[in-house]
C-alpha cells in the first residue's frame, strides 16, 4: 500500500513493516521473548525466534532493502539472551545482506551483542523529512515514526468485534504494528482524520472513518 507522507512515498507492508526508499522500518521485534519466559521457568515453546528472523530476512530479500531500521525493542530482555540465542541471531546476521540499525526502546536497556553488528541510532534520530523514535512523541515540523504501543484496531461492537494489528498514521506521527510473532496488542482510539490500516491474513485493509 503506497502512501505519500511529508513529500516522500512510503509503502506499508503486510509483514508489519514500512518500506521507505531502501530502508525497511520495523518496530517491537522482541527477540528472545519466549526465552525470557523459559528463563523464569515458564515452559513456553520455542519457535518464535527462528520465525521472526526468517521473516526479517524474507523482507530484505523481497524488497531489496539495504537497511533494516528497528524502532526499539529489538530484544525482549537481557534474561532472554542466553548464549544460544545470541549465536542464532549472530549467524542470522552474518547471512543478512543489509545494515541493521536500532533506535533503542524501553526493552533495550543494554547494548546488543557485538556479533550482531547493530548500529545504534539515538532516540529522535532524523533523516530527511522523518524522525525516528521508540515511544510516541511528536515534534513540530517533522514527521515522526514510532512503535512501542503494539497498536491494534478493533472493528465492530460486542460479539462481532474483530481485532487486528494495525498501522496508525496521524498527521504528525506514524505508528507501526509490533513485528514480533509473540506479541499482543493494545486497542487504539484514532483521532478524526487519522489513517488506520489493518493487517489481515489476506493483506492490508485501510479502515475508513474509525472512531
Amino acid at each position: 500500500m503506497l502512501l505519500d507522507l511529508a513529500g516522500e512515498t512510503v509503502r506499508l507492508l503486510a509483514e508489519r513493516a514500512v518500506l521507505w526508499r531502501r530502508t525497511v522500518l520495523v518496530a517491537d521485534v522482541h527477540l528472545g521473548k519466549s526465552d525470557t519466559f523459559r528463563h523464569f521457568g515458564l515452559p513456553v515453546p520455542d519457535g518464535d525466534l527462528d520465525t521472526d528472523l526468517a521473516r526479517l530476512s524474507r523482507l530484505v530479500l523481497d524488497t531489496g532493502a539495504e537497511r533494516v531500521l528497528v524502532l526499539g525493542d529489538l530484544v525482549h530482555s537481557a534474561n532472554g539472551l542466553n548464549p544460544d540465542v545470541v549465536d542464532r541471531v549472530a549467524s542470522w546476521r552474518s547471512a543478512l545482506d543489509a545494515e541493521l540499525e536500532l533506535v533503542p526502546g524501553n526493552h533495550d536497556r543494554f547494548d546488543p551483542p557485538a556479533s550482531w553488528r547493530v548500529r545504534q541510532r539515538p532516540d529522535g534520530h532524523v533523516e530527511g523529512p522523518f524522525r525516528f523514535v521508540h515511544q510516541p512523541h511528536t515534534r513540530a515540523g517533522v514527521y515522526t515514526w514510532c512503535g512501542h504501543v503494539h497498536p491494534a484496531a478493533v472493528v465492530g461492537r460486542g460479539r462481532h468485534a474483530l481485532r487486528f494489528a494495525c498501522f496508525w498514521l496521524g498527521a504528525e506521527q506514524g505508528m507501526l504494528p509490533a513485528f514480533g510473532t509473540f506479541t499482543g496488542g493494545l486497542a487504539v482510539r484514532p483521532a478524526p482524520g487519522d489513517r488506520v490500516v489493518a493487517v489481515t491474513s489476506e493483506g492490508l485493509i485501510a479502515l475508513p472513518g474509525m472512531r
Partner: protein
Amino acid sequence: MHTPVGLREPVPDRIRRFFTARGWTPSGFQEEAWEAWNRGESGLIHVPTGSGKTYAATLAAMLEIADHGGQMIYITPLKAMARSIAEALADAASGMGLKLSVESRTGDTASHIRARQKRKPPDILLTTPESLSMLMSEPDAPTRLGNVRALILDEWHELLDSKRGTQCELAAARLRAFSDRPPGRRMQTWALSATLSNVAEAAQAAVGTAGQPTLVHANVPRPVELETLLPTDVSRLPWSGHLGLALLPELGAWLDPARSTLIFVNTRAQAELWFQALLAKNPDWEPQMGIHHGSVDASERTRVEAGLADGTVTIVVATASLDLGVDLAPVERVVQIGSPKGIGRLMQRAGRSGHRPGATSRVLCVPTHALQLVEIAAVREALARREVEARTPLNAPLDVLAQHLVTCALGGGWTQDEMLAEVRRAWSYRGLTTQAFDAALGLVTEGGRSLRAYPQFRKVVPDAGVYRVPDPDVARLHRGSIGTIVSDVTVSVRWHTGSWGGGTLGQIDEGFISGIPPGGPFHFAGRNLELVSLREQVALVRPGKPRRGITPHWPGNKLPISGSLGAAVRRALDQGGGAAAEWLAVAPLLAEQARMSHVPAATELLVEDCVSAEGSHLFVFPFEGRSVHEGLGALLALRMCRQRPLTLSIAVNDYGMELLSPEPLAWDELLTPTIWSEDGLLDDILASVNATELARRRFRDVARVAGFVNLGPVHKRNTGRQIQASSSLLFDVFLRYDVENPLLTQARREVLEVHFDERRLRSTLTRINTCQIVRRTTEGATPLSMPLIADRLQGDRASSQTDAQRLRRAMEPEAPRLPPGSPGSTPRGRRAARSRR
C-alpha cells in the same frame, strides 16, 4: 433411641456418657456408622445437613485413636469450616474424657503453628484439600503421614465433581499406600455427603477402587417449603436480567431485622449490589447487616459469622461462600435471589434455616426476571418428587495428575510402576492408560515434547529409579502454586491510613480496579469507597460518600442450571398453569409468548427467528442448561457455516441459544434435518472445539493447575513486565510451536467433556429429533428470547469466512433497519419491549 445393654454391642460407653451429658440421644444412623467403623469398614454417610453426621463419622475413630494411637485427618472444603469443626471435635474429645489434640491447618495458619505441628503432629488435623497436598510435599511425608488411621471427607458432594475432589482422591490413594506399609494399620475413609443422586459412585470415589464402601443412610426427613416473593403488579418484573432489583421494595418490606435472615445471591457482584440497595433503603439497619462472599477479607467474614451466631448481625447477603459450614448458627429465614440453578443447591441453602434434625426448612425465592417464575415452579415440583442432581467425578484430568506427581516427588519421591498403580486406585483415574500416564510424566520430567532440549524444565528427575525434585527453586515455586482453584490476578483493598495502608477489606480483580481513576467511587465489601491510589498489588481506599459507585464485576464461570432442573422447567412449561402462585403471576407473560410465538410443550422444540438492526437472529430453546447450549450452539453454527460462507455469533443462557448473523439470512434454508443429525457428531464436535474460543479459555486454567504457566505473585514481584502475556497469546504460541502438548489436549478434552459432553449432546439431539420442531418468525424479541438478547456477554463465533472477508463485510453499510416500534429495533431491544407491555 435406647438399645438395651447386652443384646448387642451398644453405643460405646464413653460416647453414651458424652451424649447423655448433653441431653442428646444417638440417632440410628450414628450408631450404624460407629459400628461400621468398629468393623474396620470405610464408606459414605449420606444424610441431610444438620443431622449430626460429623459425630457419626468421627467419635468411634476418636476412641480408637485415643486407645491405640494413630492420627485422624479431616478434610473440609472451606477454611472457615475447619475452625468450627475443630471446636466441635475438641468438645467431643473432652466430653468423652479423651486426651486428643485437635488442630486445624489451612492456608491461614500462622507459620510458627505449622512448624510446631511439624514437630508434633496433632492427633486430629482439620485441613483443606490444598493444605493436605502441601503436607504431602514435605520430604518426610511418608513417615509423618504414615500413621493416619482415619480420613474424613466432609461435604464430599461439594468436592466430588471438581478438580479439588480429584486432588482429594489422589491424596487419599497416597495416604492409603502409606498406611499399607508395615507395620501399618489400614486407613479407614469416611465421606460425608448431603443430598445427591449418585450415592454409590460418590462412596466408591471416596474409598478408591480397592475399597468396598459401606453406605450409611439416615431416614431423617428434611421437608423444604418454598415460597415466592411476588410483586403486587407482575408487569413490574422485567423480561430479563439477573441482578434484578425489581423486587427490592417488596423484599425490603418482608425483611425484619429482628429475625435472622440469610439472603443468597448467585454472584459476588450481585451481593454487593443488593447489599448497597438494601442499605440505601434502610440506613438504620446498618449495624445488623453483613456481606459475605469469597473476595471479602477473612476477618470480615469471621465477624459476620460470629455476629450471626450471637445475634448481633441478622441480615446477611451471601454467595455460595455460606453454602457450607456445619457450625454456622441456624437462621430463621433464607432468601434466594435469582435462579436457584439446581435442586440440590436450593435444598442445601434452604437447610440453613431450621438447622436441626427433622425441622422444616423454608426458603423465599425472589425472581429477578419473569421467566424465573417458571423455574421456581419447576423446582417446587422437583422437590416434591425428591429429585436431585448427580455429582459426577471427573475423568482422569491430566493437569491435576501432573501437579500431584510433582507434589509426591517432593514428598519422599516415587517409582514409576508403584505410582501408576497407586494413581489407578483413585476412582477418577481407574481407567488411566499407560499412555496418558506417560504424557503426564513427560510434562513433569521434560516440560513436554518441545522443551526436551531445555534442562530447566526437568522438574522431576529420576535418581536410581526414584523420581524426585532436585532443584530447590522448582520446589519453592511448586509449593506456592499447589491447588486447583484458578483465580485471576487480584489486588488487595486496604484502608488508606498513613502512607502504608491500614486493615485489609478483601481482594478485588485487577482489571476492575485499574479501570477506576484515583478519587473514583466504587462499591466493595458492602461499603462505598473511594480509590486513593493503586500501587503494586495494593489499592488504598477511603470511605466514599454515599453516592452511585461502580460495582465490581468478578470474571468467572456462570453456573449453569442443572440438567435435572432443565427437564423440570420443560415439564413445568408443558403442564403449565398449576395452582402455584407463580403460575398466576407468570400467566400474562406466557400469554404474550403464546401470542407472539408459541409456548413449547415437552415434546416440542421451539425455534424462533427475527430481524433487528444487529442482523438476523435465530433462537433455539432446548432448556438443557448453559453448558450444553454452548456445545450445541457451536455445533449448529459449524454445520450451518459448512453450507455457505457465513459468520455467526453464538450466545447462550440456561433456556436456549441465539445464533446471530450480521447479514440477512434465510434460516429455513440452513435448518435442514442434517443440522440436528447424530451422524458424524464426534468429528463435528472436534471441529467445533478448534473453531471456538472455548479451548482457549480452558487452556489457561489447565496450564496453571499443571504448574505450567505459573504467573503467580512470586514471578510478578521479581520480573514485572518481562513475562506478561495474555493466556490467549500463550495459547497461540503453544498451538503454533507445540501443537501436541498434552495441556492443549487436556484443554480440548475438558471442552469436550464439559461443553460438548458427547453423551449428553447426543441424548439432547436424540430428544430433539423426536421433538416436533415449532418454527416461528416473530416481530422482534419474545419473552423467551429477550433474556438472550439482553444478557449476551461473551459470545463465541463460528465462521467460514477469513478475517479479511469479515472485516470487509463489517465495513459495509449496516443492514436495513426494522420498522420503527418493533422491539428488536433498539440496540438492546429492551426499551421497546418494555413499552409493549
